[in-house]
């Protein structure tokens, strides 16, 4: 290391990463971009283009995108979008008071343990955590057994395979991703500002709405990105906990690349999803820059 010119050192250190991500991340995405303008052949492969001029001037290269605007697909896109929005809002509403307690009111000796407990689900198997809800919600599951034992119902309810069960799974899976950034922003909150607000005569609620909430908006924004993005591209939760009418974009894309064997159309859908995600991230980056934070 010592005999390398200092100027070239960072490049040598970064070369393996650039190669790995370039070859196996950027290149595949580029191929998907190109494929999204192609056509599927009757056998499920890619149709060769014989007359490029005609292909482009007739607008045929955009036909996958045109097809994605069809009612059925648009409905699934719309459903995915509002379910992701609802998941984000529910996570924020559920997580905020708990994060507030952790950051401001919790006894110090409990704090470390409570924080560790909030971090662990972050990293543990999403698949297994989703499966646990199948165990609870299925016809012979715990929820139905408890309700029957309590004589609240006679016949088991259909709790699984609908949009509510998907919603529960999404909120359950993504909640830690909202809890932690909101906690971090509350932890950084300057307590003397709250005191000042009280001294100036602000009531508890007006202090919350006009001081605490605006000052912790960065945490909520970060949590929104962390929750919204994976919810939008969700596959596992909707596949395991959802029924045929709770299909999301993720399931649709997976279907095009596997069973339907229509890579070009799947590519167009994948790019539309990516575009939605990138738009949100660009908005978030602009927000962070306006606040003078370094994002990258």
């Amino acid at each position, binding site marked *: 290391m010592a005999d390398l010119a200092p100027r070239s050192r960072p490049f040598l250190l970064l070369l393996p990463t650039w190669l790995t991500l370039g070859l196996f991340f950027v290149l595949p995405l580029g191929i998907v971009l190109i494929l999204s303008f192609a056509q599927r052949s009757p056998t499920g492969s890619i149709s060769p283009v014989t007359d490029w001029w005609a292909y482009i001037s007739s607008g045929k290269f955009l036909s996958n995108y045109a097809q994605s605007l069809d009612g059925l697909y648009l409905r699934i896109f719309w459903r995915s979008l509002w379910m992701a929005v609802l998941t984000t809002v529910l996570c924020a509403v559920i997580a905020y008071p708990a994060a507030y307690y952790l950051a401001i009111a919790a006894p110090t000796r409990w704090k470390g343990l409570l924080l560790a407990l909030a971090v662990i689900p972050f990293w*543990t198997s999403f698949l297994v955590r989703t499966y646990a809800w199948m165990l609870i919600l299925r016809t012979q599951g715990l929820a139905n057994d408890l309700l029957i034992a309590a004589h609240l119902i006679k016949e088991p309810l259909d709790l699984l395979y609908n949009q509510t069960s998907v919603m529960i799974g999404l909120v359950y899976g993504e909640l830690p991703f909202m809890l932690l950034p909101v906690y971090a922003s509350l932890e950084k909150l300057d307590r003397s500002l709250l005191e000042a607000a009280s001294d100036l005569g602000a009531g508890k609620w007006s202090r919350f709405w006009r001081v605490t909430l605006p000052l912790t908006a960065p945490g909520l924004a970060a949590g929104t990105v962390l929750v919204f993005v994976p919810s939008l591209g969700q596959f596992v939760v909707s596949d395991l906990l959802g029924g045929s009418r709770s299909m999301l974009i993720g399931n649709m894309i997976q279907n095009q690349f596997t069973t339907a064997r229509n890579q070009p159309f799947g590519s167009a859908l994948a790019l539309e999803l990516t575009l939605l995600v990138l738009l949100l991230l660009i908005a978030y980056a602009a927000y962070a820059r306006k606040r003078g934070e370094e994002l990258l």
Partner: protein
Amino acid sequence: MSQITSKGKGTFSASHAALAVYTGAVYLFLYAPIVILIVFSFNRAKQTAVWEGFTLEWYAKLLGNAEVGHAVVNSLIVGGLTTLLATLIGTPAGLALARHRFPGETVTRALLYLPLVIPEIVFGAALVTLLGLAGFRLGLWSVVIAHVVFSVPYVAIVVRSRLAGMDRSLEEAAADLGASPAEAFRRVTLPLLMPGVVAAGLLVFTLSLDDYLITSFVAGVGATTLPLKIYSMLKTGVTPEINAVSSLLLVVTMALVLVAQVLLRDPTPKDNVR
């Protein structure tokens, strides 16, 4: 806190108690399903959720299940190779980002964050398309490639933030005392860095062990990993055996994450500098 609570102390502590109860409920929501899953893995009942007594039967059955055993071996191979390759590739990148200024820095950072934010399903579909076009046969190696791609950014980011929080004066002191840059790196930077690298490795191993979605695209015949096996098992119906294997996966990953958390706790542990 006491200054804030000076006005209307009674109502404030009452609302804190309410908040404590609420937070308890949120934690119950987070952990009850996990606890239920683990408890049920010891339940003798085969079909219902009613408790019929303690048994280790389902764990014993797992031991005899050759397919699950094969999936576990595959997962360990993939996890091990991924951890090794991702730390070898990502650690130098984290080092470069923390210690050097260079043209293309912003692009590199964006490149590192992109795999963390692009939907998994898009990456999985894109990678399998590339491998298909390149005529690469799907198998364990394609799974390793996919896992290394999503792991390298984690390693680079963890290593970079560990170095960023580290005092540079130690390296400078080593140089002042006559250590060559290589020596200073080997005897000062590397020991300080190691807990971060190990923690990153553990987290990456956990991610690899857990990944279902991306793996489902790129795993070839015979490359079934544990999450793929669990998925196909539970597609055919809930069985006590799935509870047992899921509980095991859960406990193992939780233990790994806990160790990683402990390693990452203090950015400059004094007893590590010799």
